[in-house]
């Protein structure tokens, strides 16, 4: 059962790892991805980024993505935390963590989760520029391509 959280507050990566592994000794590897707000967008400096989401559907979509990962890989734990609201460059924005007996499953599931999250979870980013203007971020074709490569699983789940 995956842990899915959508929140404005920062998250505690170490606490999330501890929670994933608490009391277990069957985990051999943890894959983790931490997304961070960058200070530029398309070469333009940004001062802040605001994340809007669709309450209710967001948790549902993240849960479905995590459930899909759990059918594809033998996961012993899975955490997805996504922040919303106004964030600054350098702020962590998303955490994906996966635990498995073997590293390949953990790493592949982690990459899968962030790729699918980017194209299937209802979040929208608005970037604020130095001159006071702001703009909604356009979806990227690369993200669609990254998500699409999981439609035909490339490698077996187990190491």
């Amino acid at each position, binding site marked *: 059962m995956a842990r899915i959280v959508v929140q404005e507050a920062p998250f505690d990566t170490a606490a999330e790892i501890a929670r994933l592994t608490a009391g277990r000794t069957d985990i051999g590897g943890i894959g983790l991805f931490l997304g961070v707000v960058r200070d530029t967008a398309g070469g333009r400096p940004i001062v802040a980024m605001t994340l809007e989401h669709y309450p209710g559907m967001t948790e549902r*979509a993240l849960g479905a993505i995590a459930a899909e990962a759990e059918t594809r890989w033998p996961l012993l734990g899975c955490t997805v935390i996504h922040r919303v609201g106004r964030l600054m460059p350098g702020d962590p924005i998303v955490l994906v963590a996966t635990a498995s007996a073997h590293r390949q499953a953990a790493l592949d599931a982690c990459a899968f989760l962030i790729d699918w999250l980017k194209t299937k979870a209802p979040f929208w980013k608005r970037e604020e520029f130095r001159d006071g203007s702001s703009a*909604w971020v356009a*979806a990227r074709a690369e993200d669609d391509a990254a998500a699409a490569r999981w439609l035909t699983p490339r490698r077996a789940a187990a190491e």
Partner: protein
Amino acid sequence: MKILYFAWLREKAGTAAEEVEPPAGVRTVADLIAWLSARSPGHAAAFADLATVRCAVNQDFAGPETPIAPGDEVAFFPPVTGG
């Protein structure tokens, strides 16, 4: 029927949420978009380029042919950009 708008569709439509009662002939998402577009210039602008509009019916992604019914929650938004 509850209609939700997110991101720039919200800004263009001028509302985040509205309750509507479309006539009986409005049976699909495509029908609904056509009907909503006639409500105001803002709505028309929100739906002007359908290539950049995505839809969810009752919080599941939906396409133009997805059927809709009274009581449904229908959301319109741009392609997602989280992560």
